[in-house]
């Protein structure tokens, strides 16, 4: 802790004494790719202390003037602007350079939204990829990124986008067939996958039937298997509302679909009109005249 405090104070003092920029014989390359080994030749003789400070990285080394300063692959890996000070006795040399991200993508942060959506929607699924190098620097150089959405039947749609400032994005359509779909993004040889649930849409043409139940005063109601307009089975748990309207009153019951159908019993009243609906979708109506 004390060491870093001394180091930072030293930097402040040196920065105050020297104007920022290249001075003396210290010659650093203007740009260095993150994770690249390189060396810098120094002039003069005797011992000196080298300070290197950048975003998230700081180094201090004792060096011999007149020899090369070698930086290994792991020394400087955070992309950004770096400053260098070489302090020997009362003289100080300084330099600046940029560490740039590696050109080779190493990881992708892939945001696929939404992760659950109804079938058959146009441009409803967005995929956004952030391209990072091996040191988690955002790769700013344009990179081709390919996206592929494949459903359980094997049908796939593809798009390609080029990253701008490290980000590439596309919009995809959801398939007509419900089920899990695999959404993958590929940049270089890096591949990232997400699973998208493509779920049935609103129920389509709900149909129910009525019959006398075991109890004389009750009528048993049951829907046919409820499907959306693309033929996908509406998931169990979806609420179906039965409404029985008669002179002077009504009865209702909200029933969840179980094994694809909704069934219930309601009071049997001759002349009553029984309707069925789910959400904002209406189904058929039955006039109950008893004992059918």
């Amino acid at each position, binding site marked *: 802790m004390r060491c870093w405090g001394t180091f930072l104070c030293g930097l402040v003092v040196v920065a105050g004494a020297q104007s920022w920029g290249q001075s003396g014989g210290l010659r650093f390359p203007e740009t260095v790719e993150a994770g690249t080994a390189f060396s810098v030749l120094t002039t003069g003789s005797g011992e000196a202390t080298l300070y290197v400070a950048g975003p998230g990285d700081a180094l201090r080394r004792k060096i011999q003037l007149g020899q090369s300063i070698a930086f290994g692959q792991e020394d400087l890996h955070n992309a950004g602007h770096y400053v260098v000070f070489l302090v020997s006795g009362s003289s100080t040399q300084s330099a600046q350079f940029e560490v740039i991200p590696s050109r080779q993508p190493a990881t992708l*942060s892939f945001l696929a939204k939404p992760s659950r959506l109804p079938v058959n929607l146009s441009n409803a699924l967005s995929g956004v990829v952030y391209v990072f190098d091996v040191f988690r620097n955002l790769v700013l150089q344009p990179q081709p990124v390919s996206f592929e959405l494949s459903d359980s039947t094997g049908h796939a749609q593809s798009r390609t986008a080029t990253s701008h400032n490290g980000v590439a994005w596309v919009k995809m359509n959801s398939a007509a067939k419900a089920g899990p779909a695999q959404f993958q993004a590929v940049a270089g040889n890096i591949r990232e996958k*997400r699973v998208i649930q493509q779920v049935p849409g609103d129920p389509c043409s709900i149909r129910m039937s009525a019959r006398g139940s075991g109890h004389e005063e009750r009528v048993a109601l049951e829907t046919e298997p409820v499907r959306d307009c693309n033929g996908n089975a509406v998931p*169990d*748990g*979806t609420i179906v509302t039965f409404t029985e309207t008669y002179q002077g009153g009504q009865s209702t*019951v*909200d029933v969840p679909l179980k094994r694809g159908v909704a069934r*219930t019993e309601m009071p049997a009243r001759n002349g009553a009109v029984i309707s069925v609906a789910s959400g904002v979708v209406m189904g058929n109506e039955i006039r109950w005249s008893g004992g059918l």
Partner: protein
Amino acid sequence: MTGGRFLAFLLAAATVAFIVIGTLWPNQTGMSVADSKARLMGSASSPEDAVNNLMQQIVRRNWEAAYSSLANKGEFTESEFIRDLNGNYGSLRTYANLDGFDVQPLHATADEAQVSANLRWASVVGTFDDQRDLRVVRNRDSWQVVWPIVKEARMAPQVIPVNYLRWDVIYRGAEDDWGAQDVEGPHVRIVAMHPVDRGGGVVILGELLNEDVVPAFVTVKATLLGSNGAALASEDSFDKISHVLLPKQVSPFRIDFRKVRLSEVDSVRVQPSTSLVAASADPVIGIEGQKLNPVPDPSLTGELVNQSGQVVNVAHVIGTFYDNSGQIVWVADEYPSRALLPQTPVPFTISLPADVSSKVGSYRVVATSFSSSRFQ
């Protein structure tokens, strides 16, 4: 010294006088915590006294004394009497206290009288009334209440098969990368919204649809905006909504603003918020015999029928009322005080403002349930 003796004598005399007054004319207001018209307990010299005495014992939960004072205690046990008043199965009634009562004599003969008693129970969700018409009979020199016991129907022992359907949620872990996939929140949509001027305030009425395939926990927040775009007030729907919506389920909501006039409001911002919630598709509750009753006591009455096999401890009934053009004109609710036993109808009454009842052309009722045996 003389002054001190006089003061001591005065205090002693006053003490004796107060004791005599208190003995001859005891203070009844302190006793009647529930009803200012209640009389001190003792032998019931009139039908009203008998009912008052009984109500006082119920207020104090002195069940033994209340039961022993009844004329027809041979017809039921003390436990049945307690269950009739105090509920069971963890119903709303089991958490309620008798907050007050009104006694109204209907008619009387020399040996029998009819007295109407309205019991006001206080619970965490408000008060509810329990109206009982009591027959009171003379037994030698005193009067005794014939308690109209409401015995709960009991289901025959049976097995009710239920295809239990529920949803559980697994979220991504805290250690996952920010770009890692997480479960999608439920999608809901407001399908109707109507602000009305009511009692000098503003009431926002509306309906909310869960258009997703997963259950949603929903709340609705409304903000009233003035002509300059500034927020005048912000409120949420609290309990005038069904908070857990299963897929494709619709719930009404009502948000009350008591201190803002509709004329001050330029626009209304309504924001539903949702989160995924573990939920169960059962129990199914039928709402049968719904009937709109006109003035002088405008209300919607009906019966809740628990079609599943588990006991519902507390039910919540919410009614949405529309005019003839389909516009929402009111949303009201009620918590029935009794638990819903399987296949056993429980009546409910949703009160309506008189001016609203004349506009109602149609209505829609939903019921939600709370069961202590179910994790939700």
